[in-house]
């Protein structure tokens, strides 16, 4: 497979996963917002920080409020990670990859692009519309993944897409785990614990993980258990452990992947799932994971896309 095409394919998969996860991320924060008790505040500025976009956000917007952040995350094409940008880049990449993808793939992405062109603005303006539009993005993204997994040969191009999807997904799950830090509760709030529980519930919901959590872990939503679940569960497809296992299995199917495999093992041990998980310094751990994923991405790019 052509190295340039492989890189475009890898990025196309990342962009689509990012569009979906950004939609989930926004849905999640909107839910958290609705559940906040009087006196609690939502740190909008923290939100872009969690997404890793704070410096680019502040370059264009003086104040971090809901309106500005929604615009920035949904429709602002100056933000390369906004949903509109992600879909647009995915579409441009798909245009160069039509020879590798099922014919319907282009039509799907193309119509999602046209849909966002017509609806992204409304999604920024009001919360009800936002929910509908973002869910539509998630649905369409599922349709695309279904199309690809059900109609495309599961050979190298498919593995490259799976690789991109899981690297991106692991990164986004690590960022969503940080969402709690955006909520500032009053110090003496007696409802502290139940609020935290509700925030974790919203988070699980936005990752479509609540049901699995209840079935696999507990009916009770507790911080440590949720963190453990999203970092370490080997059965839930959005947990970081699961994503890394996917990456490992893709690499096993790609040519000359040996030099990359130890890096994934290393990332895996960084999670610390083997020992008793230490959730006290969650923030640090999450940053470490994001850093590790970025390094893996760079190594992958050098190894496969820039080699000859």
């Amino acid at each position, binding site marked *: *497979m*052509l*190295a*340039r*095409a*492989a890189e475009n394919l890898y990025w196309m998969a990342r962009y689509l996963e990012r569009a979906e996860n950004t939609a989930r991320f926004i849905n999640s924060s909107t839910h958290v917002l609705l559940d906040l008790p009087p006196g609690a505040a939502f740190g909008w500025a923290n939100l872009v920080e969690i997404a890793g976009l704070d410096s680019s956000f502040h370059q264009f917007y003086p104040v971090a409020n809901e309106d500005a952040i929604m615009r920035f995350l949904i429709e602002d094409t100056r933000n390369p990670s906004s949903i509109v940008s992600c879909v647009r880049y995915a579409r*441009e990449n798909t*245009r*160069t*990859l*039509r*020879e*590798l*993808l099922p*014919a319907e793939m*282009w*039509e799907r992405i*193309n*119509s999602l692009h*046209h849909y966002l062109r017509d609806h992204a603005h409304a999604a920024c303006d009001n919360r009800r519309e936002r929910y509908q539009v973002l869910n539509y993005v998630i649905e369409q993204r599922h349709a695309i993944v279904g199309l690809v997994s059900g109609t495309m040969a599961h050979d*190298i191009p498919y593995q*490259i897409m799976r690789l991109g999807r899981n690297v991106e997904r692991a990164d986004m799950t690590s960022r969503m785990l940080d969402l709690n830090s955006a909520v500032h509760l009053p110090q003496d709030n007696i409802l502290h614990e139940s609020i935290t529980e509700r925030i974790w519930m919203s988070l699980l919901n936005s990752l479509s993980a609540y049901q699995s959590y209840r079935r696999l872990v507990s009916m009770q939503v507790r911080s440590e258990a949720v963190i453990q679940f999203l970092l370490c569960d080997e059965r839930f497809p959005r947990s970081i452990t699961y994503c890394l296992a996917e990456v490992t299995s893709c690499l096993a199917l*790609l*040519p*000359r992947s040996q030099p990359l495999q130890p890096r994934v093992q290393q990332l895996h041990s960084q999670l610390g799932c083997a020992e008793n998980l230490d959730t006290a310094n969650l923030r640090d751990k999450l940053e470490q994971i994001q850093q590790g994923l970025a390094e893996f991405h760079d190594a992958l790019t050098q190894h*496969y*896309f820039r*080699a*000859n």
Partner: protein
Amino acid sequence: MKLTLPEYTTNTAFDELLDEAQRPRLAARPLFDYLDSLDAQELAARQQAVDATIMAMGITFTIYSEAGNIDRAWPFDPIPRVMARSEWTQIEAGLKQRLRALNLFINDLYNEQRIIQEGVFPAEVLTGSGNFRPQCVGITPRFGVWAHICGTDLVRDRDGTVYVLEDNLRVPSGVSYMLENRQIMKRIFPEVFRSINILPVDDYPAQLYQTLAALSPRPVKHPVIAVLTPGIYNSAYFEHSYLAQQMGAHLVEGSDLVVGEDECVYMNSIAGLARVDVIYRRIDDEFLDPEVFNPASTLGVRGLMRAWRKGNIGIANAPGAGVADDKVVYAFVPQIIRYYLNEEPILANVPSYLCMYDDQREYVLANLDKLVVKPANESGGYGMLIGPRATVEERAQFAELIRANPRNYMAQPTLDISTAPTLVDGELAPRHLDLRPFVLQSDKLFATTGGLTRVALRKGSLVVNSSQGGGSKDTWIVETEVKSC
């Protein structure tokens, strides 16, 4: 469904679908029966569905003058152009005859030049040719074939004669639109394909694949074929990716390829360097290899010509094939056919005046108001003078150009090219059109069934190029003979 009568009653051109009394011709009758069953509302709904389909299918083209806008929706007219199979069979034979002769001609020009020695083709035409590549002299590609893919433009004059307007032997485009047009029609008018016997067009990608695979230097079952594109900003990029997809070929840019020390061509793959057997190149000769042609080219591959000369890579069309894609050479095609094949040409050439000959030049200069003057090496309808529509100043300017470089110009009488009913504001109005079939040759010959019909959407316009306000129609070759039991 209403004809726009005032326009139809004053239409002097031959109409493809309607006879002089505006009754449907035999081949078009089933179509009109079908159209009669649709009311205006239904047709408008279908037209909307067509637009939505084109949008969803993302069928686009690029106009260079619109910087940044790389996808304009493809303008498509839902009323097909219909031709009887009996007529098409004749045309198809003529197209294959023409390409066979042209390939013998090109191979002769790069080798013995018998046709010049025997005085059939003037040496000075070759000397003045902008597309003759001295770098290709002495080469005989496999099967002696240089132009593997040819797009031949056909038009029909007032008396019903079909003429060849030009042979596009460099990098002819449009075939993907022919295929997509049929897809659109099948989606929006599925019932019509049940009731009318319309011959399919979709075997083209498989035929193209076989034509290219036959050029592989390695005798492998699945040779590695690459479509070489200049990139996403090229006006035909849509087609490059479309054909690569349809053939299961790699879509590559020059920077993806390297020529190794063994003078074989390789592409950068994720598994390392991988050998390429055949390149379907969609870039012009000048940019193919900076070592031999334009040294500043970044679109091509250094060393490609060395690899080709060694027989380590198949290239379609072969570098230098464009020598026969020249409007002055065009005038000699009937003699070329007679010379190499010893056959009479099946398809007619438009009578042509070559400005390189004194008497013909004088005739052209004296009759500029009646003639169409074309430069020898341009394509896409650029650089032409349409005499009857030009101003006195324009004609004077052109006369200067002709005198300065007579070899570069030829002239033809203005043809009253045929029309077909086209949907304009909910009614059918006559619009001028041409037909571009695609002909393939390597070990075998193949022609598309019909081709791409291009239509000038502006009233009275004769320019069908999509870059200049043209659209397209599906082309139906239909069976008209009823078999008796």
